[in-house]
């Protein structure tokens, strides 16, 4: 039984929570221009590491709010709980985030650009998606 420290309600038993799987997945914004393979990656591929894993959880029988957790899939130790939309602070968790192959996907880069320059959003996304068709980094 995990004891999860909900950022809003404090420590509660895992049976109050729902696990939402891998965190930090950007939805491809330029859906019409990306390849089937890339959309399949977004839809079906989830990291399944043996070790540290960044995942989303929801306090479904409590405040019903989402948040992120950095948890070890072997020891089940939770090393950090952090809010949605933020990056983890712990060094190991941050390194896990940076090392993920998703950081290299066109979807993620397009989302980053969109966040930085909201005014030029549509044109930029298409360009970014075309530059890296189906690129899946080997990190």
């Amino acid at each position, binding site marked *: *039984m*995990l004891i999860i420290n909900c950022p809003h309600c404090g420590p509660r038993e895992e049976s109050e929570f*729902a*696990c939402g799987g891998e965190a930090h997945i950007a939805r491809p914004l330029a859906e019409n221009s990306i390849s089937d*393979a890339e959309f399949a990656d977004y839809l*079906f*591929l989830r990291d*399944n590491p*043996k070790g540290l894993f960044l995942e989303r959880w929801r306090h479904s029988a409590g405040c019903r709010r989402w948040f992120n957790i950095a948890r070890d899939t072997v020891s089940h130790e939770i090393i950090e709980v952090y809010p949605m939309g933020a990056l983890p602070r712990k060094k190991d968790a941050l390194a896990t985030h940076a090392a993920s192959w998703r950081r290299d996907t066109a979807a993620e880069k397009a989302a980053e650009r969109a966040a930085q320059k909201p005014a030029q959003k549509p044109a930029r996304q298409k360009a970014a998606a075309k530059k890296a068709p189906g690129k899946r980094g080997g990190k």
Partner: protein
Amino acid sequence: MASHQPDRGQRGLPGGKPKYSAFAIAKKAMNYHQDWQRAWRDAAPKDEYDVVIIGGGGHGLATAYYLAAVHGMANIAVIEKGWLGGGNTGRNTTIIRSNYLWDESAAIYEHALKLWEGMTQDLNYNVMFSQRGVLTIAHSEHELREMSRRVHAIRLNGIDSEILGPAEIKKFVPTINIDQSIRYPVMGGFLQKRGGTARHDAVAWGYARAADDLGVDIIQNCEVTALRRERSKITGIETTRGFIKTPRVGCVVAGHSSVIAAMADIRLPLASRPLQALVSEPIKPILDTVIMSNAVHMYISQSDKGEMVLGAGVDKYNSYAQRGSFPVPEHMLAAAVELFPVLSRLRMLRHWGGIVDTCPDASPIISKTDVEGLYFNCGWGTGGFKATPGSGHVFADLIANDRPNKIAAPYDLNRFRTGLLIDEHGAAGVAH
């Protein structure tokens, strides 16, 4: 189907192993059973093999056996990081059935069931396959209607399946509670009479013995640490017992598939989750079939030793720890006690978890990869045991011929790109 069954005659196995029989037991008794031959050699890894199978569970050993028996290959190794059948093969609830909704699933699970029916003879090893029937219960009108649709689909595929009403269920399973006042009352169910159970260890041991007899090297306590490639082609594997050269690697490692795939920079759409099961103290026979319930997440049967064997759905988060969390068995036992009040004061004896590799569409992956000579057989999730012989049979065919046969073809990794999923989530008959 009969093509792989070699003519054993009365003497022994084709490779020369003496035959197991009642006569052999009587004969060996004269010598206090001291001169039984080892069922398989404790092989040391050779420098080179034609095929290496990673994973010495039921599926991996079956693959090696069929590679040798059907495809005539001789230079094969099975690499296992622990002991044979110590993973999910030894951790499941041994239920066997083929009553799946979709044609693709029906084909592979029925292929497996037919092989189960001849397995004890084929391997000359008693796998204690018991066709005691598998009864899946419906707890609502809607579920019952969906179930009858499924039964018709299953029968169209030539697989036995029948709907039972509550009274018929009570007659078939006298210990069950069909009182309509319980929270999830028994509204009906569907039965596959050819389904049942088998002895899980015997499956691993039987395949190991028969494969060893045909010259397959079974190498235990040998963990793969890296896959060696040259220009996206497999050239060998690094293990804790040294480098092994091989042009073909079949990976059948269930919960650790993602770990092996990462060694070749391949990503699989899998989530590794704990699946828990438990057994009670042994009691006199009270249940001579298998009962499953999709809605309350519980399945139960009684082993030949008299233990009640119970299982449930997977835990809700990823884990490689081979243990689950308590809310799952608590939920399972609550359902079991409501359906079988006779169990309420039974003590539980052992409880364990295995790591299953679940796929987004709850169907397995039997596939080539972008790396030439690297094949994956994974994603069986919660339902791998029943498929053991069929899985090994078609996977051996894929490795030997470098192309999937008709049964294996729909299970290609590419289906997640083309969208041709085999969505068995609701139809599989048990919670995934």
